């Protein structure tokens, strides 16, 4: 399994150190950077591609919600906020909040929660990359050399749907040519 990558944005040196040692105690984690400001937030995210970003809310206020949302969608990371204790339900973008002076044990639990959410979520992404039953049927027809029209007739779907399936197959497998798809289909037959 791959490590869960963390990045921490926090002004206070002590909090940074504290969180770093806490995260390190959890198995399968890795901290790829700690920062005292959010100045080059976007480029850090792009370069590090983290799974979890822990960030003080003060720093977060310099980044627009929009940017944050767009980045978290594109790079698929979770945000944990460090706050002054006031629960703020207006921030749906944070999946968890840490409070100043919160118990170590509590924080560890929260981090573990987010990690487990994350791995469930990743599994989903992986399943999405697998080809569906319908797509497999189309793939097998392609491998047999049938035309789109023939496939449509055989599977009782429209030619347009066949094309959509084929596009998805190519996207998911990364194989473009008919002979490449044929090789894939044979390799993956009934095993």
């Amino acid at each position, binding site marked *: 399994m791959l490590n869960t990558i963390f990045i921490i944005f926090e002004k206070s040196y002590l909090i940074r150190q504290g969180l770093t040692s806490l995260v390190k105690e959890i198995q399968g984690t890795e901290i790829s950077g700690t920062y005292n400001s959010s100045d080059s937030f976007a480029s850090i995210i792009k370069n590090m591609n983290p799974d979890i970003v822990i960030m003080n809310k003060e720093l977060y206020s310099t980044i627009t919600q929009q940017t944050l949302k767009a980045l978290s969608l594109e790079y698929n990371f979770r945000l944990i906020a460090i706050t002054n204790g006031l629960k703020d339900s207006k921030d749906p973008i944070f999946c968890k909040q840490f409070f100043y002076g919160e118990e170590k044990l509590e924080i560890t639990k929260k981090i573990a929660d987010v990690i487990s959410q994350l791995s469930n979520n990743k599994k989903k992404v992986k399943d999405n990359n697998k080809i569906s039953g319908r797509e497999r049927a189309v793939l097998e027809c392609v491998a047999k050399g049938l035309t789109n029209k023939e496939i449509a007739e055989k599977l009782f779907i429209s030619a347009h749907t066949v094309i959509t399936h084929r596009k998805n197959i190519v996207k998911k497998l990364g*194989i473009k040519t008919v*002979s*490449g798809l044929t090789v*894939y289909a*044979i*390799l*993956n037959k009934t095993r």
Partner: protein
Amino acid sequence: MQNVSLITKKQEIASLILLNIELLPLLRRFDISLGVGDKTIHEICKAKEINVDFFLEIVNIFHNENYFPATKLKKFSIKEIVNFLKESHIHYNEEIIPAIEELIHKLVWAGDDHERNLKILKKFFDEYRKEVKAHTEQEEETVYPYTVFIENSCIENKKIDECYKKMKEYSITNYADEHNNIEEKLTDLKNIIIKYLPPSQNQDIAIKILNKLYKLEKDLYHHALIEEKILVPKILEMENILKELNSSEKA
């Protein structure tokens, strides 16, 4: 043009190869043997009677990912381009592809599916070999001779009539429209070996194959670039000149 470090004729040919090992196959296609000493590109080209502008154009295309050929400024002949392209074809068909084929034959898989996997991989690559052969043959038998003919007529200003007739049947735009991408299957094969083939017992060979596929893919990409961005525009220009000549002759 970004991040381009242009190669110039004052550079030593040895430093060129040390800079980018992927340029090595080009020496063969220009019939330059290793043991080049400290000769510059200019000196070697002079000794070998290679058009230095053309040589530079080719190495720059292969060296700089973003280099865009500047056809109109450079003076070199169609014959030179065609010769280089033919040499490249020989290299692909007679050496690079057979070498990959041989490696594929050497692959051994773990498990019961060994025979079947080997068979489909061989079949896939066999088809590919034929596809490349057909592609290059068509170019050598039809396209290249046509381009040389057009160049000759343009230079000698002769046989304009005959030339015009030919152009009515076939134009370089036909070639440009139909010229297809022969790297696609290689990309697929790379994908299949990396992702979908069950592990082979012989990882060394699998890695060697991938390395070779990667290099050939790049090589073919640049080759097609020369065909489409140098050869085609040059011939197009000549076709236009010939068309004008023909109409003024009739007038």
